[in-house]
């Protein structure tokens, strides 16, 4: 952080050099190019590292004390290790990163080689000793069977017929999709697939896939499509979607933690929250569901829909025994 870059680079290089001797010791006669690829450095960098090690060794620093290596063409073998025959122990951060990642993997629904994950976890924890006692617990929700089936479907390379609930439109539809991969993001499983109906890549939440049938035909994802980068979340609203602005009371401020918001401005006790929505009918359901603590600032069209819908609903309740079915399809 406050360290100069040069010092960081030197620490990285020292870590690499201390790894390099045991790495080569375990692989006598390895090709330099292969080792460089494995270690994530250029061949030139690796040769420079070897050169540096070659002048390091035990006190005395005579020919018999220095690290020694034999070269055979492009292959290298350590012939004397000067005592650095093992890599350094895992640091606290390294143990944490590996152990927690393995715990997450072990908890991920639909991972079928769970025994291997747990075996690896036990061995890494054992090697990390006290450091592995990371006080971290993981519980991922999800229907393991469903994720497992989706994974198998992706691996089968066949198209799928799915029944999918689209929350944005509150409708359940059937569609044929060409699966690309199954992901777990933020504790939720998704199927990323080419949707033939929408003619585009879509992320389908596994818990909203109500039926899934493997078809006989092969999955054909158009060659130009790329998997979505999900590092910033699955739903990234496009700038051309309708923007709504809500006046949000204290009790409903939590929505800013749940939905990606374009802008949040405090206005006295309340917040003015702007977000993009895929569908105004969804926004209407959102506003109604949030209750009296939230009012629509814009667009006027949405405020009008909310008012009209509330009037219809209240009207239905005011007529005892009146059929909900008698209400016209609201908001359309």
């Amino acid at each position, binding site marked *: 952080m406050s360290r100069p870059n040069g010092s960081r680079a*030197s620490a990285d*290089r*020292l*870590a690499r050099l201390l790894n390099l001797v*045991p790495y080569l010791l375990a692989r006598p006669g390895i090709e330099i190019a292969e080792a460089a690829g494995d270690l*994530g450095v250029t061949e030139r960098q690796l040769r420079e590292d070897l*050169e*540096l090690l*070659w*002048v*390091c060794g*035990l*006190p005395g620093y005579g*020919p018999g004390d*220095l690290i020694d290596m034999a070269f055979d063409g492009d292959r290298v073998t350590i012939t004397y290790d000067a*005592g650095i025959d*093992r*890599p*350094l122990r*895992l640091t*606290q*951060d*390294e143990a944490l990163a*590996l152990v927690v990642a*393995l715990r*997450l*993997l072990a908890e991920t629904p639909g991972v079928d*080689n769970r025994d*291997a*994950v747990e075996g*690896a976890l036990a061995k*890494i924890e*054992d090697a990390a*000793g006290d450091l592995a006692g*990371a*006080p*971290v*617990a993981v519980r*991922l929700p999800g229907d393991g069977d469903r994720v497992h089936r989706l994974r198998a479907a992706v691996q089968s390379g066949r198209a799928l017929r799915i029944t999918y*609930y689209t929350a944005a439109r509150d409708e359940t539809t059937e569609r044929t999709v060409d699966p690309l991969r*199954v*992901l*777990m993001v933020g504790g939720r499983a998704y199927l990323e697939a080419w949707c033939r109906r929408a003619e585009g890549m879509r992320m389908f939440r596994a818990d909203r896939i109500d039926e899934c049938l493997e078809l006989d035909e092969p999955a054909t994802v158009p060659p130009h499509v790329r998997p979505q980068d999900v590092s910033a979340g699955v739903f990234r609203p496009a700038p051309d979607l309708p923007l709504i602005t809500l006046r949000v009371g*204290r009790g409903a401020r939590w929505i800013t933690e749940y939905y990606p918001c374009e802008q949040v401005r405090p206005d006295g006790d309340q917040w003015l929250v702007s977000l993009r929505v895929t569908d105004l009918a969804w926004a*209407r*359901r*959102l506003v*109604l*569901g*949030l209750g009296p603590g939230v*009012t629509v600032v*814009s667009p006027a069209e949405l*405020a009008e829909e909310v008012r009209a819908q*509330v009037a219809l609903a*209240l009207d*239905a309740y005011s007529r005892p025994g009146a*059929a*909900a*079915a008698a*209400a016209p399809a609201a908001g359309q």
Partner: protein
Amino acid sequence: MRARYRLRAVRHGQGPSPYSGAPVAGAAWVPASAGTTASVLRVSRSRTERLVNLVICLLSTRRFLTAAQIAATVPGYEHDADDPRDHEAFQRKFERDKAELRELGVPLETGTASAFDTEPGYRIAHREYALPDIRLEPDETAAVGIAARLWQHAGLAAAASSGLAKLRAGGIDVDSRATLALEPVVTVDPAFAPLTTAARERREVRFDYRVPAEDVATSRRLQPWGVACWRGRWYVVGHDLDRDATRCFRLSRVTGAVRCVGPAGAYAPPADLDLISHVARWSGEREPAARAVVLAVPGRAAGLRRWALHSEPGRHGDRLVLPYSDAEALAGQLVGYGADVQVLEPPEVRDAVIQRLKEIAVRHDELAATGGRL
């Protein structure tokens, strides 16, 4: 560059490069000129080289070596101990080097060689230094490779890959291309690492915490017991010193830095600690034991139909039986469907829905009257 090539010559007299005829690209072979001594050349050796030699030296000794002994042994520490300025420069250099080794995780031991020594000495126990032998089966190795790629967070991703580099150096061949056909993507909040470390060391922490319903962050004092991931979100569980009670905090709501205060080992978490159940209880999830009956317009309210326990078409619409635990929460959900859904029973849900609808109507009518401002 030049100095290093000369060193090579020092090492093997006028011998050839170890690559015999395959010098490093772009570098010229510079033989050591006559009369140059190793000690002069050693001064110009790089810092990294000095540190590697320091590690090797301290690993090879069973006795604690004092700074003066190290200076007399390890190349790169040569100085005139009688010259105060030179000596001070050496001490600063040695302190920096020790700090760098400790930061890398090198277990530098301090002690004295005998009861008569007053000056501290240093050594590294191989047993403490070395990664123990890890024997992984091929599928276990693949799992480690996948796990190391899980992190999207830069800090943990770097830690995972340097951990993986050590496993490789330990002789494990990790295939970095292995996949699961299932890609977990994990993100953590910045407070994750400091809180996890504090929990492991049992150190009290302070942090600012802001819940959306509050206008300002409040400062909290916590004895953290552990961190838990629940439904894709991270929480810290511990003893809240201000409330004198067990509390959960969502890491995404921690603002600013987490500060450790006081010594390690300051408290002990409960012996039967179950982090997940604390978080689950805190999040207030309850078994939906109650039932509500609603009428839904045919073909609409698809979201409700998916979790209805029972659905039956009728003259006035489809009757859906819905499980719930909190009447107000259910009312909020049902109001979302507007006139497409009408609650038949129980009265507590029906009344809550009507009350909400009335309040929303009043608020939006006011809004229309004032042109957007309330």
